[in-house]
């Protein structure tokens, strides 16, 4: 039986731990081998053992408290675990664990000796053959042996002295380990890279802002110096279309962040969705979701790939619920905009331009004495992953409608760094189910309280799994939003939930704070 199970688990992987681009174009069942499960970013599982009729029987299988060596506590697991051959691999800043997916018992724990960097979160690990890859807050890409957590090599991927740090869960595409960088304390350029999985050597680097005279986008900056310090970090794992051979990722805020006098213009390619060839880093197209942003609304939220239908025509689409409160649907072959609509009510725009970009309202320009803006800096949503169900045609995202007063602190002609900031005053939180064809909210589940920070999972069992604001992990009817099951985790969901089938049972995993919870639909005892 064990041999059979191993064979079944390996069916989605061409070799142990090596994601097969063809297989990863489809949603996994017996494993969860990448950050998003597959390459599409849909976080939709075809599993239906747990469904609307029986989800009320979902039971706790085990919990695992991530111990960082100080006795546990204090760690926030925002990583999406990957599960390969019955072992879960997940991370927190400076830490990686391997845990038995059947029991929740630790197999090994790797600790990185940090030299600094902001320890804001780590989104997870990537697998290739028998190796794991993760990024560290002090700017390294590290390769580990999957079987024992021993370090194979380390490569610096950013400059800690320039206040970069790293959080992204890398993405494996064939022989490329795609990595991103984080940080917006000082004014530095964003970029995305690919590394050789065997050696860690740099294969290519693509900047997200112009770095020399004549670079594309330079006309959207007042000077080359402004562009070279213009931000556009690459916080979140890309998605990938194997047929088009393009990766898709969003870019972060322009810098300086709030006070923008020194960077007049659209500030390309910050707060944009970029399509890039993973073999050479060349950009195929871009679409800017927030031209010249002044609110720290990183446009990095997962670009979800949808094979859908618009006006009766089959289309290869890309959808993003962006931090600025707008939902975008693009043609992912060309980047042409199909739909732009609010998924939470905003007050910062006057209109949408002819190419689908929201136009900032001049009356809501940031001021020394304060401008009341919604969304707040946290955004209509944030880094936490959404989900799309091809069964319902709905895009699910945990959303916030929050207000802040934004202030300019530095009114000089050349502000740098954080020459302004916001003060949050009020917020509401809800799970939104968005019809990708129209952008209309099909249903909305409002949570009590404010500040959701958890991801979403949808399944062929007709379910959506998400966290609310009061510490519940909830299964809802994907078509109606009706809650069908919940478990109090003692704290808010802190990552993106995953699901897989093992030993004939479907499991659902989620983390809250430093604890990973595994729920299972048990079979009758024989």
């Amino acid at each position: 039986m064990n041999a059979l199970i191993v064979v079944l688990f390996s069916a989605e992987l061409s070799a142990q731990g090596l994601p097969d681009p063809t297989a990863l174009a489809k949603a996994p069942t017996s494993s969860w081998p990448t950050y998003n499960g597959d390459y599409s970013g849909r976080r939709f599982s075809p599993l239906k053992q747990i469904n609307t009729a029986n989800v009320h029987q979902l039971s706790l299988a085990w919990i695992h408290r991530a111990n960082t060596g100080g006795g546990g506590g204090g760690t926030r697991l925002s990583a999406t675990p990957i599960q390969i051959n019955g072992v879960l691999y997940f991370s927190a800043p400076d830490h990686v664990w391997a845990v038995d997916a059947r029991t929740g018992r630790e197999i090994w724990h790797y600790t990185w000796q940090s030299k600094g960097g902001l320890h804001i979160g780590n989104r997870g690990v990537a697998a290739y053959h028998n190796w794991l890859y993760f990024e560290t807050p002090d700017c390294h890409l590290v390769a580990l042996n999957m079987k024992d957590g021993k370090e194979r090599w380390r490569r610096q991927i950013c400059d800690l002295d320039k206040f970069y740090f790293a959080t992204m869960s890398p993405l494996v595409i064939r022989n490329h380990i795609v990595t991103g960088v984080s940080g917006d304390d000082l004014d530095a350029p964003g970029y995305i890279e690919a590394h050789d999985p065997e050696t860690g050597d740099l294969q290519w680097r693509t900047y997200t802002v112009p770095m020399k005279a004549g670079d594309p986008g330079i006309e959207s900056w007042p000077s080359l110096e402004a562009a070279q310090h213009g931000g556009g970090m690459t916080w979140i794992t890309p998605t990938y279309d194997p047929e088009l051979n393009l990766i898709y990722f969003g870019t972060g805020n322009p810098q300086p962040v709030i006070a923008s006098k020194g960077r007049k213009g659209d500030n390309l390619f910050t707060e944009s969705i970029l399509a890039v060839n993973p073999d050479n880093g060349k950009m195929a197209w871009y679409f800017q979701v927030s031209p010249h942003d002044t609110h720290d609304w990183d446009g990095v939220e997962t670009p979800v790939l949808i094979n859908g239908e618009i006006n009766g025509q089959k289309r290869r689409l890309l959808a993003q619920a962006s931090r600025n409160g707008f939902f975008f649907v693009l043609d992912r072959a060309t980047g042409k905009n199909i739909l732009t609509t609010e998924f939470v009510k905003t007050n910062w725009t006057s209109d949408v331009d002819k190419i689908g970009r929201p136009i900032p309202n001049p009356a809501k320009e940031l001021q020394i004495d304060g401008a009341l803006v919604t969304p707040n800096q946290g955004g209509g949503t944030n880094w936490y992953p959404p989900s799309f169900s091809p069964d319902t045609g709905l895009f699910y995202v945990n959303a916030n409608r929050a207000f802040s007063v934004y202030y300019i602190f530095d009114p000089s002609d050349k502000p740098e760094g954080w020459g302004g900031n916001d003060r949050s005053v009020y917020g509401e939180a809800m799970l939104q189910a968005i019809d990708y064809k129209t952008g209309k909210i099909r249903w909305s589940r409002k949570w009590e309280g404010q500040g959701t920070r958890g991801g979403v999972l949808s399944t062929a069992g007709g379910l959506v799994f998400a966290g609310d604001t009061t510490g519940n992990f909830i299964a809802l009817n994907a078509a109606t939003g009706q809650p069908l099951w919940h478990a109090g985790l003692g704290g808010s969901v802190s990552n993106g939930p995953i699901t897989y089938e093992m030993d004939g049972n479907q499991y659902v995993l989620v983390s809250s704070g430093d604890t990973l919870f595994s729920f299972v639909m048990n079979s009758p005892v024989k």
Partner: protein
Amino acid sequence: MRLLILLVTVFLVAFSQGRPQRAPGAGVGPDDKHIPDPTGAERGKKLYAAECINCHGTQARGTERGADLIRSTVVLKDRSGIQIGDFLNNNQHKLQVTPAGQLTREQHLDLAHFLHGLVLSTLRRTQDVLDVLTGEAKAGAAYFNSEGKCAGCHSGTGDLKGIGRRYEPVQLQQRFLFPRGSAFGRRFGGGPQGKPVTLEVTPAGGKTAKGTLVFLDDFNVALRDDQGEYQSWKRTPGLKVVKNDPLQLHAEMLDKYTDKNIHDITAYLESFK
């Protein structure tokens, strides 16, 4: 020069008075980054004014004659003035007031304290609100008593008497927008949070319980009644829950204020001494 003084003041205040809450640079950048000494930075400021300001500008952000030192790799990679000193001593810097090699090791260190202080003063949470008292109190009074709907619950001679004395203007601004706001609670150590939310809970065929909200979600509800007793219920189809938030109007008004309204009301509230 006024902006230079402002930046240095922000930096020095951050060290001497514990404000803002997070020390400049805490948690970001390398663990071994240069932490400036305020006394050395003060000496470095004078040195900078004599040696550097003409080319690098009052804020060290560069001019047509000199580079931006806040974004300078030499400065960012410097520790204790060593890299800055090497750069100056190695004659890479053609337009020095004092010739290469003539500034002392101590002077390099003082310059480093000053420049690293400027770098840290650009980081998140190191600067603060400048001035929110730009509105017209008279216009604020008119709005307070009409479209703002404030006068329905509040008055300057009643519950708001003396509020302009008790709170800083920026606190007043955020507090009137939503008194239970998270920013107010975080930044100012809690303080009065406005009137609490109350609940009325009626079980099927049972007696209504009233009290202050303790917990409410889609599945459970809890309150504390007038006698201080804690009561909780599972939310079932037969359980009626009525939530009364006395601040609901504050939330609804957020969609209606213009920024001018906000500045005017702040000025009006500040006049309640």
